[in-house]
């Protein structure tokens, strides 16, 4: 009779990387649904493109690196990267944008660093920054929420729009971007900041149809959906509370201080937390285990750093949203943070090598 030899422990909690990644995708589903309902079906087309590109790029590089392909595709990490990038770019951005971005994320940012677990930067955010810098026009062409759109786009139109930058009826994206009032719209964050630069106060800006109750139409609900997904991840133990809480907390605190000083020129905490990618980034992007800090204390610092950077860039920077930059900058600080936040080992007075 043969006996199986194994090293202890012989028991496992049966949570695998693949499951964790799949949970991330599942938790993203409500937000994706909300996004496609509020902002059109374009996001679904982008998702499809991104996922196919991610799998193809991953398989290609794994083949070149002479690694087993299927088990590594099954860890679903490429899928997560694809989803996060696809939901971050404008719904009707041209198809090549997401293809380039995803391929860059997988090939350059992830695999060239050694694959899953070895990348210094968050692949989705690095790709986002690349696209933002290389194709600023395409990357900022967000359509207004469907409620504010002149022309409604069906699912087929979404495919046409992504592929040819015009609906199947030939309505160009430029026309589509015009709101019911005939004004070309950007994201609420963008609009508000543009208005600020043009000398308007925020309350004046909030009068625009893009806003409702001090938050962006549609964006508020989208952020809520991401928040719900994030809470699901927390509940499932996929992510820990430290990073999202510190990201959102520091962002809220900074904006609260600024807003208390001057509510006319500074975004309210509510607006900050429920605009742009706030919830998405706090729960889904900053918590990427590979590129985030790995110590309990370090994660707090890491989250706070992101929150503060987001506030600074949103308030003083020139880009519509700040999370991609903030996350990448924080990624760079991770080795340092990790080194100086090592926990004290049982029975030791202080951390060795640091006095």
């Amino acid at each position, binding site marked *: *009779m*043969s*006996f*199986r*030899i*194994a*090293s*202890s*422990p*012989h*028991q*496992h*909690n*049966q*949570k*695998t*990387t693949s*499951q*964790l990644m799949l949970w991330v995708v599942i938790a993203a589903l409500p937000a994706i649904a909300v996004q496609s309902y509020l902002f059109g079906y374009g996001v679904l087309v982008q998702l499809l493109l991104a996922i196919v590109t991610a799998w193809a790029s991953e398989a290609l590089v794994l083949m070149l690196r002479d690694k087993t392909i299927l*088990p*590594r595709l099954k*860890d679903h*990490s490429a899928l997560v990267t694809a989803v996060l990038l696809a939901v971050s770019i404008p719904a009707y951005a041209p198809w090549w944008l997401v293809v380039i971005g995803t391929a860059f994320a997988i090939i350059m940012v992830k695999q060239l660093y050694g*694959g*899953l*677990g*070895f990348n210094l930067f968050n692949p989705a955010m690095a790709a986002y920054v690349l696209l933002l810098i290389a194709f600023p026009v395409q990357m900022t062409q967000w359509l207004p929420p469907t409620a504010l759109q002149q022309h409604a786009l069906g699912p087929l139109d979404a495919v046409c729009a992504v592929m040819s930058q015009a609906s199947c009826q030939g309505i160009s994206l430029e026309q589509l971007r015009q709101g019911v009032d005939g004004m070309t719209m950007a994201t609420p964050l963008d609009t508000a900041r543009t208005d600020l630069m043009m000398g308007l106060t925020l309350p004046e800006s909030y009068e625009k149809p893009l806003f409702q109750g001090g938050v962006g139409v549609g964006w508020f609900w989208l952020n809520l959906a991401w928040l719900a997904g994030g809470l699901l991840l927390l509940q499932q133990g996929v992510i*820990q509370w430290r990073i999202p809480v510190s990201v959102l907390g520091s962002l809220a605190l900074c904006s609260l201080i600024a807003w208390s000083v001057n509510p006319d020129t500074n975004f309210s905490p509510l607006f900050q937390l429920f605009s742009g990618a706030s919830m998405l980034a706090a729960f889904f992007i900053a918590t990427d*285990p*590979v590129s*985030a800090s*790995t*110590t*309990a204390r370090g994660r707090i610092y890491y989250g706070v750093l992101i929150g503060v950077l987001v506030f600074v860039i949103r308030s003083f920077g020139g880009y519509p949203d700040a999370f991609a930059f903030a996350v990448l900058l924080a990624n760079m600080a991770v080795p340092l943070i*990790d080194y100086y936040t*090592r*926990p*004290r*080992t*049982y*029975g*030791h*007075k202080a951390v*060795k*090598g640091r006095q």
Partner: protein
Amino acid sequence: MQSLLEQVAAEQLWRFPGGVHPPTRKAELSKKPIASLPLPDKLYIPLRQHIGVAGHCLVQKGDHVMKGQPLTMADNSMSVPVHAPTSGLILAVTEHTSPHPSALPEPCIVLEPDGLDEWRERAPLHYSQCSTEQLLERIQQSGIAGMGGAGFPTHLKSAVQQQVELLIINGVECEPYISADDALMQEQADTIVQGIEILCHILEPKAVLIAIEDDKPAAISAMQSACHGRQPWFIRSVPTKYPSGGEKQLIQLLTGQEVPAGRRPIDIGMMMFNVGTSFAVAQAVLHDIPLVSRIVTVAGDTLQHPQNVLAPIGTPVSDLLHFCGFQPERPQRVIMGGPMMGFTLPDLSVPVIKTTNCILAPTQQELPAAGEEMDCIRCTACAEACPASLLPQQLLWFSKAKDTEKLDEYNLFDCIECGACAYVCPSEIPLVQYYRVAKAEIREQQREALKAEQAKARFEARQARLEAEKLERQRRNEQLAVERAAKQSANAPDAVAAALARVKSQQQQTPADLEAIKAERERKKQLARERQAEKTEAPANAASATDPRQAAIAAALARAKAKKQAAASDSEQVHPQQNQPEQTATKPAETAAASEASDPRQAAIAAALARAKAKKQAAASASDTGQTEQEQAKPAETEAEQATQTAAEPADTVKAEPAPDPRKAAIAAAIARAKAKKQAEATPASEKTGPEEAKPEQADAASASAAQTEATEQPSDPRKAAIAAAIARAKAKKLKETEPK
């Protein structure tokens, strides 16, 4: 600020970081009574079942032993004996698969029970009347080592000088499946309490704290009633979490204190014993029952009747499993110990030992084998699970990189290998295994470094010693020199006289030498003159003064030489011309050679001739016919040429003679020819023997010339002759070497 004891009395609990909550799977087993195993057919009792050294084996094959009889003798404090678990016959003392992850064979006593289970005589003690030493002695002689898993000898742990503030009795039993301590507490609470009292008698702690996990309510209530009324004893129910039962973690949990790294609990005034150990202590002291059996949890879904079994030490695992209705899968995993820290067994003949608390035979469905190891995603689930607050993901990275410095900085050696990290790792990385390997490597390195250090120290010590000896010698020599100088100055006249005598004796010797040298010169001059004459005169009109004696000698020599060549081997021939003529004198051909030594010039000439001959033979064809010194041994030569040459040669060789005899020369030539022919026949590979031939020839020529220089001249200059011979030999050798080319 409350004191620790006050806080403990106030039922305060602390917490330790990390920990995991694997399914405990204990409920069913802990309700069943402890079953007794029928005596197995054979018991395999390893000589060493604890941390320390094995005792000295007391029995041999064929011995009959009684139950409880010691089988080994603890001959030092790091040792505890093992005892016969039942009466029976010693079948062998042999190597047997050890109950260790390595499964390496270890010395084992094989006992065949006789079924009578007869006890040796027992001597129970009344502990309250015993000294600490007596009790410790009894504990050691009863073979008691920590029953919780580590197997540290209990008498060693108990023999402390420090004050014990808190005696902690560990009934936590946090690992899944295992309920041996639970069952023991339920059924033997009173004995356990007696054991604790004995330990208290030895250690005199200020308080006793019994910790039991809260998933063992029956055990808690049993212990509570057994301890009732004892002060200050506390029974503490601790939350179920793995690894609460770890010594360091339990101390943190119960007292909020940490055992400093590299120290022991006693250093912070605490001592911890397992409930099983205190039971064994009570048995040993009160009933003189040594540690011969223990409770083992036999669990797993491949068993029809999983249960706690009281098994004699040495019971093969197969007996236990089959007693519980084992229905193995293929391939089956059998784990000794729990699912978190146990190890798999390679075969089922492995025996139960003092530290075996569980045998687990799970189905694949129940405890699936680990999946494929994936890359670490730095999720830090491991760091959150680590009860020692380590960073397992960093340790993994450094382990893979073999970065021992970083491993040390990140406190690898504080890892207790509880397995919590690997349990939660989503990439199913066998983290503990990596750490074990890294630890082993570091220990190995340290051993090597120590060895190198010792070697260096040894070397330096040796250098220092040599240096010291050298200095000592120098000093002594200097001193001796001074002494000698002093002595010499004292006997100065004598020394001068001695020196003068030496000089005188030298002077006396000198005239004789001068005489010899003069004669030599004379002879040489004559030789030169003769050669001159030979060259100008034709061999035909040489003087008629014949010397038959000389011719006869030459002929004889030629014969001898021919004979020798026919033999055509013999390393003696290679050195026919020894430095000591006496040595070669025994051989016929070399008797001539001996005489050759008498005349250095002649010898030199002879050597030159031999050289030429050897060269010629090597060339072996197309030789110069016009040469006067053509050698006689050349088979390819025409008669006529030979005639003239041989005529010329003897003339040459017998140059010492003032008037060479043509007739004699002709005879010699003829002989030489015959000899040469013979030689050609005898040695087909003439080139090979060439160098060797050269010497006899040379000897011949030399002897021919030496024949007429009388024996009286012999001792004239042996040194020169030897030099010439050596040169000839070297030449011949060289020739031999170049020849095969």
